[in-house]
């Protein structure tokens, strides 16, 4: 069952992409693709390999510029030239490899690249590790994440815990929209459960999420809406509660 995006959810659109096109040489990666995410909504972006999911994600992150179409964030037209622009607009990503430094603590990872400084003895600039640590405690408490010793380097933390750290980082920087690329792909089953629970609790807290995934069970468990791409075009915009695995898979393979 398809419906217009206005009917899908009551909230304000956080991000709205219209008529997005992107060409790489002779390859048309995206053609007139629409995607909208409303406040507190979880949207799954699904499609076969090469359907254009990651190109779409990279456009939202400012890694690629679209050739055509427009991006609006909270109604304002935006043009992301660099990933920093997207971040400034409140869009944060959880990369598949999580982009964490295992030799640094949670706080240090949260602030990596934007470390707060203080003055020791009143004049000597030094990194403010206490401030980083306090922020880490804040955000992990807020998200109900349990970490044995948050001052320690991530070291041998499990995949699920690392995922939680990566999410904490995004939340700390006030992500309005979290883009998660295959968040459960590298995890064991119990860990997958915990990440799914974390996504649900983020949703309860009003964070909008785009989840890129191959795992239909995950998609149906967390998503409000499912946007299907096929060969760079929209092949469905489905309300999760009103569709089925079969319909989604069919659209991924054969289109609308």
């Amino acid at each position, binding site marked *: 069952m398809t419906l217009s995006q206005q009917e899908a959810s009551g909230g304000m659109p956080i991000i709205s992409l219209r008529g997005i096109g992107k060409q790489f040489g002779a390859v048309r990666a995206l053609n007139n693709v629409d995607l909208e995410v409303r406040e507190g909504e979880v949207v799954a972006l699904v499609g076969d390999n090469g359907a254009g999911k990651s190109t779409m994600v990279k456009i939202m992150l400012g890694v690629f510029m679209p050739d055509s179409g427009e991006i609006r964030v909270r109604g304002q037209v935006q043009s992301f030239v660099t*990933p*920093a622009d997207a971040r400034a607009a409140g869009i944060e990503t959880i*990369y598949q*490899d*999580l*982009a*964490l*430094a*295992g*030799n*640094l*603590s949670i*706080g*240090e990872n949260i602030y*990596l*690249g*934007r*470390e707060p*400084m203080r003055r*020791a003895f009143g004049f*000597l*600039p*030094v*990194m403010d*590790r*206490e401030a*980083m*640590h306090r922020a880490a405690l804040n955000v992990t408490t807020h998200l109900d994440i349990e970490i044995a*010793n948050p*001052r*320690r*380097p991530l*070291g*041998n933390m499990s995949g699920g815990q690392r995922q939680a750290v990566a999410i904490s980082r995004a939340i700390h920087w006030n992500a309005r929209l979290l883009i998660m690329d295959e968040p459960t792909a590298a995890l064991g089953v119990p860990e997958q459960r915990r990440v799914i629970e974390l996504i649900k609790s983020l949703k309860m807290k009003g964070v909008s999420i785009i989840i890129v995934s191959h795992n239909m069970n995950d998609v149906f468990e967390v998503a409000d809406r499912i946007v299907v791409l096929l060969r760079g075009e929209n092949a469905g915009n489905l309300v999760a509660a009103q569709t089925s695995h079969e319909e989604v898979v069919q659209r991924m393979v054969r289109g609308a």
Partner: protein
Amino acid sequence: MTSASRSKSAFQIMGQFWSVAFLVVALISLEIWTQIQYGRTFVFSAYNIQAILVLASIPLIIAIGQTFVIVSGGIDLSTGYVLGLSSVAAAQVLNLASPHMDALPALLVAGAAAVLVGAMAGRVNGFIVATLGVPPFIGTLGVFGIARGMAYLLAGGGSTVAVRNPILEAMGNGSIFGVRAPIFFAAIVLIVAYYALRHLRFGQYVYAIGANRSAAERVGINVKRQIASIYTLSGACAGIAALGCCARYSAGAPQAGEPMLLDSIAMVVIGGASLFGGSGTIIGTLIGALTIATVQYGLVVVNVEPFWQFITVGLIIIAAVLIDQAKGKFL
């Protein structure tokens, strides 16, 4: 010290446990040997301790630069001859300048030349590794050869360029409050490096790049520029060490740093730094330097042929890397 840094150093003590243990074992063995052989103490002799510190000081300066490189996941093999090149450059500049100015300004110009030549060589390493993407092992080995050739050319084919400068001689062989000058030299570099690696963003990014380069890129760190700076720093350290060599021998010598390359890498690795990148500390490198210098000095005390020093240090570095591999990347 904040509790955050306490717990971090507690974590890093694991990495330094072996180096401290090794240093203690070396000191105890030497103590027993000298007690039996000469009926004298080794460890509680200020003369011995000072001699070990002086022996450690110049290689330690190179090892400090090398620490930044190794923590970032690279290696700088060029330092041996970058030191030589810098020392010859400093000696030539000093000889050119001396007839025209007083001892102090002449020395300042020569010192600046040493650091500048070292930093420039390091910047070339940085360009080759960061911009051209040549693996550091090969890129810096190439620069090792280039610096070697240039050092001998600049020395006019001779093996040394003698200099005369009273202040330089005092820096090499004088004492301040009873402490030999090279020790002060190394201590200043040590403190500045500790501060930079432990407390500045610059140092934090060295660790981040060593642990996960693509993560560092994604959070917006300019990784290529950072790596170039790290190699430049290593080269500058070789330049500072070159000035120390000039001071000690009253000459610039192309081959002055050659035996120190192995020593300095051994110091870093014994200090708990992983050649995989991502771990290592300045304090660890200091402990490593004391260990290597103690072993070298000890071998002289027990009266074995000096060539055994190279063999011993070679064995130590291999053992240290084996221990590192056994304990895994971060523990």
